[in-house]
Each structure stands twice: as C-alpha cells, then as structure tokens.
C-alpha cells in the first residue's frame, strides 16, 4: 500500500518530496535488477540512478499508470543495453590488466551471494530472453500486462514464452526434487 501511495503521490504532484518517497521504494528494485544481470555494485548503482533520473523527469508521460512497473523495467532494460553497447570493447581491454584486490572484491560480492541460490542456478538453463522474462515475473512480480510493456510484445506472446520457459524449468526442478508428488487417487 505504501509503495502504491508513494507512486500515486509522485505521479500526481511530481514534487521532489514525493520523489524522495518513491525513490526509497524503487531504487532497491532497480539496483537489484542490474546486480542480478551481473554488474558490479558501483555500476549497478550508477545505472540505477540513471533510471531514477528518467523516472523523475518522464514518469508523468506514462500513459497507463497501472502498468508503471512495466515502463520502469523497460527503461532499466534500455539503460542496460546502452551500458553494454558503450562498455563491451573496454571490458575486453580491462581483462588484460591485473585487477587490484579491492576491485576484485567489489566485482564479486553481491552477485556471488545470488549465484549460490537455487533460483540463480535454474536460470542458467534458460536462454537469455527466457531468463529475463522469468526473473521479472518471479523476482519483481510483474504482471503479464506489465511484461508486455517491458518487452514491447503482445500479451499472448508473453504468456506463451513464460509457459514454455516454465515447461523447460519443470524438467530440471522436478528432476532435482526428491519429494515429487505422485497422483493422489483420493483427491481427484
């Protein structure tokens, strides 16, 4: 409720005060989005601030307020694409240079914590597009409609892709699950 109120207040007033309240709610999500895509903490925070700056300036232009989160993650995806476009060649050069212990630690901390999780392991079995969809659906809890906005694809395509990704994951998840339930005759 607090999150919804903060969003509504900012969309209504557009004041700096309302933005501060909204920032508290959104920044963690946006930062997490970038961290989960393998960026180091400093870069994730830098890009997260870029996204929040766009929210401040352009959130009023969002036509369907109910789909705000779809728009938010669309902005985040665009920001990530822009980052990769700008930094890919530099990344290859940096790889030849020795990393300081401090930098190496900064590059590994938070994402390493996520890599130990089962969810993260499941994601490695998916294609990048499927992974993106599943992560936004189950980590950020975006609705089908919001996902359609984020990926700029029809609603039916969102459902179809999610269903297929889940089918793929079902084979992995259930194969690793020891307590797989077989058909209970009494219930059906």
């Amino acid at each position, binding site marked *: 409720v607090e999150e919804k109120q903060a969003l509504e207040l900012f969309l209504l007033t557009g004041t*700096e005060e309302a933005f*501060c309240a909204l*920032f*508290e709610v959104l*920044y*963690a999500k946006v*930062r*997490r989005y970038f*961290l*989960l895509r393998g960026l180091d903490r400093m870069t994730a*925070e*830098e890009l*997260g*601030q*870029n996204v*929040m*700056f766009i929210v*401040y*300036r352009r959130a009023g232009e969002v036509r369907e307020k109910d789909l705000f989160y779809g728009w938010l993650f669309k902005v985040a995806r665009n920001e990530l694409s822009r980052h990769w476009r700008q930094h890919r060649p530099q990344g290859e050069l940096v790889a030849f240079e020795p990393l300081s212990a401090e930098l190496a630690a900064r590059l590994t901390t*938070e994402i390493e*914590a*996520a890599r130990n*999780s*089962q*969810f*993260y392991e*499941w994601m490695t079995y998916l294609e990048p597009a499927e992974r993106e969809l*599943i*992560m936004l*659906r*189950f*980590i950020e*809890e975006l609705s089908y409609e919001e996902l359609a906005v984020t990926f700029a694809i029809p609603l*039916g395509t969102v*459902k*179809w892709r*999610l*269903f*297929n990704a*889940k*089918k793929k*994951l*079902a*084979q992995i*998840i*259930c194969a690793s*699950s020891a307590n*797989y*339930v*077989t*058909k209970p005759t009494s219930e*059906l």
Partner: protein
Amino acid sequence: MMHGISDQEWSDYFDQQLEPGECDRIEAHLIGCLTCWEFYERMAQTTERLRAGGAEMRHRFPLRDEQLHAGLRGVFARIREAEASRTLPHRNSIQERLDFLEAIMAPMCGSRTAAKALHAAAKGSPAQSLAQVTPDNWTPFLTSLTSIATVMCGETGAHLVWESGQLR
C-alpha cells in the same frame, strides 16, 4: 497440443483464466490421465518453487541507508545538472540580447555610454548586475534601461530600445 489440450489452454488453466466449461473438461481429463496429471503437478510445483525462489532473491540484495542516501544524492546531482544546462542557453540568449541593445544604443550615445547605461540599468533593477539578468527579471531591467535611454537618446530612441528588448 497434448491429449486435446493446447499450451494456451494449459497456460490459462494455471492462471485460472479458462472458461468454466473448458476448465471442467481439463479437470475431467486429469482424473483419468496419469501423463497429464503428472504434467499438471510438475508445472504447479515449478510455479510454486519459482515463486518461493523469487521471494528469496528479493532479499538477497539488501540496501543500506547510506547506499540509499548516496543514490538519492546521485539522482539529485543529475537533476541539478540538467536544470543548469537548461538555463545555460537562456543565459546565452540573454547575452545576445544585451549585445544587441548595446549595438542599438551605441550610434545614438556612443559605445562606452551605451555599455555604462546597460550596467546602470541592471544595477537599478532586481538583477543588481548584468551577469544576474535572466528571463525572469528581464522586464524590470528593460524598463530601467528604457528610462535611461529616454534621457540619453530621446523618446524615439527609448521606444526603439523598449521594442528591441522584448523577449519573444
């Protein structure tokens, strides 16, 4: 399509968006078909575990207060920078307008006097100095300059200054 049930129908069934009649048909089939029942179980279990996994991932990246505040400062720095770059073109256009007014007044009262008149007008207006003249305080500045121009260049000259100085 598996046993007469399409992926679309399965997807809608899991989302509880299927028409009641279609829903009954699938459930009647599930009672007698072990393959489909196992598929249903696997998918339901997968969805449940993804939900739980997603919830766990949400807590894996805690944001400390200082990180939150640093982020907010970063965004406001971007906002201020954008605002400053937006006012810069204004400043440039103001400078052009000041140069233009000085050029108009110079043939009537001499270039040095014209420059001094501009400074005096700014000093006698809310801007206080030429550097502080902005679109917001332009009108009082121009009024002050027109008054000075009336004395130095006459009514016609002052009218020319007033008209030329209008920001449109």
